[in-house]
């Protein structure tokens, strides 16, 4: 029973596919999965917007949307309708073609990321041998769409926002990659499915998630930071810093295109936290051996949503960085730390089983983190934000 | 016509296009773009030959392509850096006007 529940979507797919002639079956199968993905995540996106708005509201002692539907659950529907019915304004001086293409590229690219994420047992579109590489390759091409958006709308705010965004994404892509390489080193494969399976085993009922190892934990922290910067979430949301440049690169967008950007951004969040879940939090594997009876996809999605909530929480908590702080942080702290982490992961790999490697690795990481952190703080490179112009 | 020949033709075409770009554009950056295209055409050749070689598992062609991609990245970085430096000196990227090395 549990098994069928676990595999329900897969079974469903097979059942439907069976109705088609043999020649078409693979195509149809893929199409079905794609449709499923494209259906699921916008729904999640809608849900998330509510959660975010209400959550942020509570954090700021507001109530948040509460008119449409019970507790404002239907708010996203209203938003959707609004944005669809709005007039789509294209500035005269804008570069029409690029201006039009940009959001499409973004959305497409972002959705492509899901192709390799295993969202449950046997629930991935393709099990690519180079899945991780694929994911990053796709993610890299999102930057270009942002640039297109910013540049094409012939607006200095948009251009500045785009430039900031691109610069930021480029600089944080490196640590993002680096922090995941440790995982690859240990698993010995780039395939996300294999990575999840490697984590899907238990000792004393506790899972072998990579986050529960010293290097894994360190890598996870770095990954989170880089991921947030990658998705332009606060505290790294300079590209759309309302106070500085109106709405960043999509200032000149309105109506449905704006909604597309919004969608793209959130789906990007989903995909990146899905990746984080897959790499560090054991993907669809249950947190405890005893909980295995529950279907795997529930675990995956709950983990993803959990990390989304954390992201929202952080957004509500932390102030925004300054550009130079951002860059310094990326290149002078995060990157070196991820490199160190690679070394530690190698050590872990070769020290073999035993308590010793735990001690050594944790010691190295902790020591260096404390030292570097202290010195950096003292050198005020990434110290607490100083309001040089606001005093 | 074998598939390999097809790939080779495409590669040759892209190469030629890149060359044309490199030869005809004024803007230094576009010349660089042309060169990048040529490099990519070469990569396509390598990959195609690897794919249709009797022993693809030896990986030589693929490796070659990967390395040349890496090198191309370096080349792009340096080249664009040079263009920017050049621009800062001559305040233009127009190659017709930049002929200070004239004998």
């Amino acid at each position, binding site marked *: 029973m549990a098994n069928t529940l676990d595999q329900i979507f897969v079974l469903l797919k097979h059942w439907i596919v069976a109705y088609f002639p043999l020649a078409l079956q693979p195509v149809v199968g893929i199409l079905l999965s794609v449709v499923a993905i494209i259906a699921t995540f916008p729904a999640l996106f809608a849900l998330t917007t509510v959660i975010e708005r209400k959550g942020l509201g509570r954090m700021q002692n507001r109530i948040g949307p509460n008119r449409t539907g019970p507790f404002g659950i239907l708010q996203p529907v209203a938003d959707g309708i609004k944005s669809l019915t709005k007039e789509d304004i294209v500035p005269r001086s804008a570069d029409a073609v690029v201006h039009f293409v940009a959001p499409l590229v973004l959305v497409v690219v972002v959705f492509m990321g899901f192709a390799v994420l295993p969202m449950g047992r046997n629930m991935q579109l393709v099990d690519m041998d180079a899945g991780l590489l694929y994911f990053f390759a796709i993610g890299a091409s999102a930057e270009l769409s942002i640039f297109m958006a910013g540049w094409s709308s012939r607006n200095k705010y948009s251009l500045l926002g785009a430039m900031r965004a691109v610069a930021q994404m480029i600089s944080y892509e490196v640590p993002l990659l680096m922090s995941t390489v440790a995982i690859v080193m240990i698993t010995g494969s780039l395939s996300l499915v294999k990575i999840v399976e490697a984590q899907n085993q238990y000792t004393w009922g506790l899972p072998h998630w990579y986050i529960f190892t010293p290097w894994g934990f360190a890598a996870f922290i770095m990954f989170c930071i880089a991921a947030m910067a990658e998705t332009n979430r606060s505290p790294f949301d300079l590209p759309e810093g309302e106070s500085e440049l109106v709405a960043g690169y999509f200032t000149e967008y309105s109506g449905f295109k704006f909604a597309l950007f919004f969608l793209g951004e959130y789906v990007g969040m989903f995909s990146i936290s899905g990746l984080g879940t897959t790499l560090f939090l054991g993907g669809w594997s249950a947190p405890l051996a005893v909980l295995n009876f529950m279907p795997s996809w529930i675990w995956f999605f709950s983990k993803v949503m959990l990390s989304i909530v954390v992201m929202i929480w952080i957004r509500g908590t932390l102030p925004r960085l300054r550009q130079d702080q951002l860059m310094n942080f990326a290149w002078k702290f995060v990157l070196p730390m991820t490199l160190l982490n690679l070394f530690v992961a190698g050590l872990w790999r070769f020290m073999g089983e035993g308590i010793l490697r735990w001690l050594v690795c944790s010691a190295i990481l902790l020591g260096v983190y404390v030292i570097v952190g202290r010195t950096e703080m003292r050198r005020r490179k990434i110290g607490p934000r100083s309001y040089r112009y606001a005093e | 016509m074998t598939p390999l020949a097809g790939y080779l033709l495409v590669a040759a075409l892209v190469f030629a296009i890149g*060359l044309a770009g*490199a*030869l*005809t554009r004024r803007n*230094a950056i576009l*010349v660089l773009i042309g060169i990048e295209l040529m490099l990519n055409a070469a990569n396509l050749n390598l990959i195609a030959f690897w794919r249709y070689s009797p022993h693809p598992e030896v990986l030589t062609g693929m490796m070659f392509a990967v390395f040349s991609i890496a090198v191309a990245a370096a080349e792009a970085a340096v080249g664009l850096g040079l263009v920017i430096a050049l621009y800062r000196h001559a305040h233009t990227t127009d*190659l*017709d006007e*930049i*002929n*200070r*090395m*004239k*004998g």
Partner: protein
Amino acid sequence: MQEMQEAIQFSPYTVASWIGRILWLIPALPIVAAGIIALLKQPKRKLASGLAIGSLFLSLLLSLAAFAEVLAGWASGHAVRETVNFAWLTFGTTPVELGWILDPLAAVMLVMVTFVGLLIFIYSTGYMAHDENFTRFFCFLSLFAGAMLGVVIANSLLLLFMCWELVGLTSYLLIGFWYQKPSAAAAAKKAFLTTRVGDIFFLLGIVWLFAQTGTLLFYNQGAGSMEPDALAGMLASPAGLGLSAATAIGLLIFAGAAGKSGQLPLHVWLPDAMEGPTPVSALIHAATMVAAGVYLIARVYPLMAAGVQPGGTTTALTVVTWIGASTAVFAALIAVAQNDIKRILAYSTVSQLGYMMAGLGLGGVAVGMFHLITHAFFKALLFMGAGSVIHGCHEEQDVRHMGGLRKYMPWTYGAYLVGMLALTGFPIFFSGFWSKDAILESAHHWKAGQGPFFMLVFGALLTAFYMTRQMSYVFFGEYRGHGHAHESPRVMTMPLAILAFFAVALGVLGTPAWPWFRSFLTDRPSTFGLAGFNEPGLVVLMLTSTAVVAIGYGVGWALYGNRSPQASERDALEKAIPPVWTALSNRLYVDEFYGATFIAFYYWWARVADWFDRRVWGGAVAAVMWFFGLWARFNRFLDENFVNGGFDKGCEELSVGGGLLARVQSGRVQTYLRLLALAVVVLAAILIWSSRG
């Protein structure tokens, strides 16, 4: 050390316990410490001394471990001789091997050197406290310690020689430590050159040995140069003058040893070496370095004694004996008439070294080494006592300006007294008595004549005499120095106390009743029993030496006891026998003799060479120079008038051509690229044509 380690793994013959394997650490530690100290800044005194002392302390621990290892082996009845050898470099086919050895001899020496060294290090922190070159001093000291330990553990004559020379160097550096003092600088040079004379012969011996046996290792599973078949081979091969190669090599090596430990013809440097800081005199010129020569002889004793019949002797040993004995008497004589407290001790050291050599020659390794060990302790004690005295009397070294210090510095007095009694061999209670007695006994039993015996007895008499003289000058009577004498700090007196204890206690190990030391070195089980005294003539002998010593004390006290002669007035002995006195106080004119002969010859030769340089060679060079000058003028003339014109024309042509070519260089990137592409087209076309045709 790293490649050493690896070499060891590959070395096919490694039979060593854990301590045997890491024996190299013992010399390595101080040397490394020296290296670090060398990098320190001057004000880092605490750190420097701490490093030196700490490293030497570690070495001491390791040495004790090694000693324990050997002891255990010996107790369980089988002789311990662990060697670790490895090929260093290869000449043609024969590899030159280095290695270290752990056997009773080395173990005993290791413990002695590290222990005495450690005490002296500690002592130096007090003695050198006011010197601004404190750190440099400790750098040299621990370098010396490392080198000396290297000498001790060396299992290869080559390695030993390296460390040997290193020891020489450090001794040079330390004697000349106060190089701003001209006398110190001169003394350093003298020491260095004099020992060099010996070392030349030593080196010759080494080379010859290598030629004879093809190896420089002492012990190497039967293939070493100190092992029977090699010795037999050397005995077989004659070397002219009716000597066997073994004897000749032995004598050459002995020459080196004589140079290092101031034996008769080459003793001149040792007294002058007292210009160095007193701890140096104690460490190098009493306890360790000068003993290196004796140790060397003990090391190569098999070679020296090659082909000896039981009870008989060999040429080499005879030479050693006679030189040792005569040195003993000679130096003792000179010591009688010295006024510098350290010089007296220096000469006494020389004579004691003579005793050791004689002991080696007469009674074998055990006898000589036992005296070496005991002497190391009590002579170090005496020197440090002297240092403390000098310290207390405000750097006064002339005994005539001291006196009555018994009251002012009781600790030093006590220690000094112990040392003096031990040195003079006061019966029963002091180690010196037993060790010297052993030598006398073996001298008495010597088949090849009684000469050495009488000389040594006379030496003992003199020793007692001059020590009494010194004691009464320094500690009795009333104070005649300037300023006000004071006791030295605890850090200086503590080592004195410790050394004093050992100066007494060590005797236990060598009494005829329980000849532990001897049996330990010679791998025989030791038994306790008063039977040891029943040897014919032994008791008589002991009584004789006691009597002799007593006479020495008596005469000394009679002449100098408790009177406090002024520096101006003539010495008591001088009043008695003026001519002898003058001779003695001028150190029997040895230096003058050398000055008149060797050095004068060198001066003359140098002048000749100088003349040659100036006149003959210089003239030739000048002529050549002049010729080339002329030639150059001629060339210049040619250039200016013929060559240049042609060149100018050519240049003009070239520049025109260049201008033409420069047209091609439009400076446009795309032009170049175009040419490139064209070239590609042409090449490809040619290729295809060729491939088709």
